[in-house]
């Protein structure tokens, strides 16, 4: 009980005049927004939300750095990472996105920095079997076909004073970017 400061609140119980005032206030706020809305919608997929540095997206494996130490599969809480034997006899990880929870413990664990995150995780798979990404598929990471892309802008929330602004810039050449 170091600094227990108590503040008792009293719920308002409006009388007739106050309640008319409150009705009008509610109406006024709604009308204000209807005339001059403070929109904050990011019109996905026309506009993409800018991912901050260190975003935990889909993973990319740098297979040359991997020393097949099994630590990422051991640490994975969802048991989504399995090791698969490659033609050279070593084991390399595969990620099952049907289980992956994007906690990126694997990335934090990897002593060699073989795991890299991308800024991308918005995939809709049509079949469960496709969600298991073997080592072969992990190296390149996800790609969105150019003709499927609908994005025009990249948007970021920015607060200036008392206003929330959607800072827009043109979307990048490549949708999926690997972080360093």
């Amino acid at each position, binding site marked *: 009980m170091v600094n227990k400061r108590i503040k008792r609140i009293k719920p308002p119980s409006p009388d007739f005049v106050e309640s008319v005032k409150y009705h009008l206030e509610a109406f006024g706020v709604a009308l204000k927004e209807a005339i001059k809305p403070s929109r*904050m919608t990011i019109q996905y997929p026309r506009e993409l939300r800018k991912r901050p540095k260190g975003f935990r997206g889909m993973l990319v494996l740098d297979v040359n750095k991997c020393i097949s130490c099994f630590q990422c599969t051991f640490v994975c809480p969802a048991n989504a990472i399995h090791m698969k034997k490659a033609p050279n006899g070593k084991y390399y990880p595969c990620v099952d996105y049907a289980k992956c929870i994007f906690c990126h413990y694997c990335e934090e664990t990897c002593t060699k920095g073989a795991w890299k995150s991308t800024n991308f*995780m918005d995939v*809709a798979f049509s079949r469960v079997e496709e969600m298991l990404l073997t080592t072969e598929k992990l190296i390149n990471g996800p790609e969105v076909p150019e003709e499927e892309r609908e994005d025009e802008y990249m948007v970021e929330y920015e607060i200036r004073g008392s206003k929330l602004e959607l800072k827009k810039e043109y979307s990048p050449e490549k949708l999926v970017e690997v972080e360093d």
Partner: protein
Amino acid sequence: MKKDVNAENIEFLSSGLIAPIKKWGAKWSLWAVHLVTSCCGVELAHAYASGYDAERWGSLNFGMMRQTNLIIVEGTITKKMARALRITWEQMPDPKFVILIGACGIEGGLFWNSYHITRPWKIIPIDYFVPGCPPTPEGLISAIRALQKKIESGEAKTTAKFRETDLAKLLGTEVGKERKPPKPPLKIAEKPEIKIEPKEVEWEFGKKLIEELKNKMPFAEIFAIDINRIYIKTESKFYEKVAELLESEGFDHVKSLNVIDLPHENKFVVECSVSSYSVEELMPVIVTFSVEIPRDKPRIPSLIRFWPSIDYQEREMHDFFGVWFEGNPWMGNKFLLAPEVETPLRKDFKLEEPSYVLER
């Protein structure tokens, strides 16, 4: 019952003279039923709220399954919920579509080996799967977009491509030293011992309180295990007596009722932790009293008459361990669990072991 409902729906929409109108209507009016199944509902709400506003795409979250045509399964479907999901799906008029979001729903995610979950895609046909735990609202919207495209073109496509690299070319096929997978780190003791022992702490008020309790309960072993934590070990015949004394002392609610299963010693340890709201000094103090009961005949009196707040925790422990709390009117019924799951938290109820190597 074998039928491909997905294909039937698409076929219905793309047949006849007015197929374009049918497709157009279905495409721009994917109303999702309000069936929140788990915590991915948070991101679903975000997708439909101001931040992303999926309503732009003509999709609206609506109350009843009768008036909608899209189920968004949000994450885990437990064995109990599976029936509700199936019923909801059956009640929905054709043509209907299903999007499944969240790892928990697809292969279980973190809960992949839980005793209480199912795989929704075994229960109803799914059009699109969105990974993530939870997925971003973008993921959900891209699934809605993909579904719209599917209605239009009739074929389901994954929205991203994953190119395959030839590993043999990249790494060579030269097999080096044979390397065996290392031993998994998880180490669970064969014959564990649960020892709860006194700890020396600097806690003046506690010492006083323990003395006071000792005077009242000469039959029990009372000690502090930490600051603000008092532990009382006693025999099962004094269980109610201890509760009564503590209740008169000012401990007015139950913080936790816990059962520890010790199969190799053939006993359950029932721990009940109580604390106080009405006495200011006792507020931070948690008093835990524990008794041991035989594992093959787990019966113990209910404390519901001292603390009504223990009611649901007793029901829960009855579900989990099969401990029978005599006096609780609910005993014999399932509370949390689906009917087919029996005493899952006993140690002999084994879960599937994790595997680390992909056998192909």
